[in-house]
């Protein structure tokens, strides 16, 4: 299956692209997607994955406009938004 990944905030700079298409085996989960992306774009690894290879807790993942957990299957999903937390106001 093919999923469009959109990068927001700092991730866009780390990825070097705003969005891309990614091919995944059927039944792949959010975590499978993150590991695939980290392999293809090593600069993303620290943003997507924690030290033990799981999803980085602060990473926000939205699949077809709904927040999802790492274990969620991506079957039927068209677009995934990945986002690092952003803050406001400035000091």
């Amino acid at each position, binding site marked *: 299956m093919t999923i469009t990944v959109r990068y*927001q*905030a*700092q991730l866009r700079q780390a990825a070097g692209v705003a969005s891309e298409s990614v091919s995944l085996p059927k039944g792949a989960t959010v975590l499978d997607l993150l590991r695939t992306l980290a392999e293809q774009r090593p600069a993303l690894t620290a943003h997507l994955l924690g030290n033990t290879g799981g999803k980085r*807790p*602060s990473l*926000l993942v*939205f699949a077809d*406009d*709904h*927040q999802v957990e790492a274990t969620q299957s991506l079957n039927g999903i068209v677009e995934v*938004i990945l*986002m*690092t*937390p*952003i*803050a*406001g*106001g*400035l*000091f």
Partner: protein
Amino acid sequence: MAALEDEDRLRYAWQLDIAGFGEAGQLRLLQATVLITRAGGVGGCVAYQLAAAGVGRLRLAHGGPLRLDDLNRQLLMSQAGIGRPRVELAAERLHALNPHVRIEPIAANASPENVAQLLDGVDLVVSCAPLFAERLALNQEAVRRGIPLIDCAMYELEFQMLTVLPRRSACLACLYPEEPPAWRRRFPVFGAVAGTVGCLGAMEAIKLLAGLGEPLMNRLLLGDLRDMSFRRVGVERRPDCAVCGAAV
């Protein structure tokens, strides 16, 4: 219910005709107290709009003196004010715009130690703080007291906004169950981006106070001004949320 005075009818004439607002909505604004923290690029814009709209009392929490590199986005400030406390400069500018709004300047940023005091007696919180520790402390106290909170954030040409209606919609801790890592002080942003999310936050505040329109509940608004895309993504309450979950 009290009636508007003649001067108010004139000052707010351009908004009194808005469908669903009217004199009743204006009275609600005049009687409201809003906490805005901080009053920089985003919060300063929120405060400016709420003062113009006639919110009765604005409590501004913002620490530190004005620096030259604040001036690309902090529009309540002025070149002549460099070195002076920012919250005082903000209060002066707001008073010059609308002398009827009562401003409570507090020269400190929100922290777990002072949030109880900051939220005391307020009807609504607009959080425009850069640090997650600050935003999450405001969120926790707002949920505990049942006070609605609007959280505004920005990065580069992007922004986001979330409205928290305590125990009715996802809170900031539902979105971020773990505190994200700390940021460096400066991150890239245009003043116009800060102003955009500040105006959106101010409009959301006016709506909530006046009972107008639909609040942004269970939706995170994402905007990217690089390609002018705006979208709302769904965020749900977490049953195990440490702040608004069933066990709290």
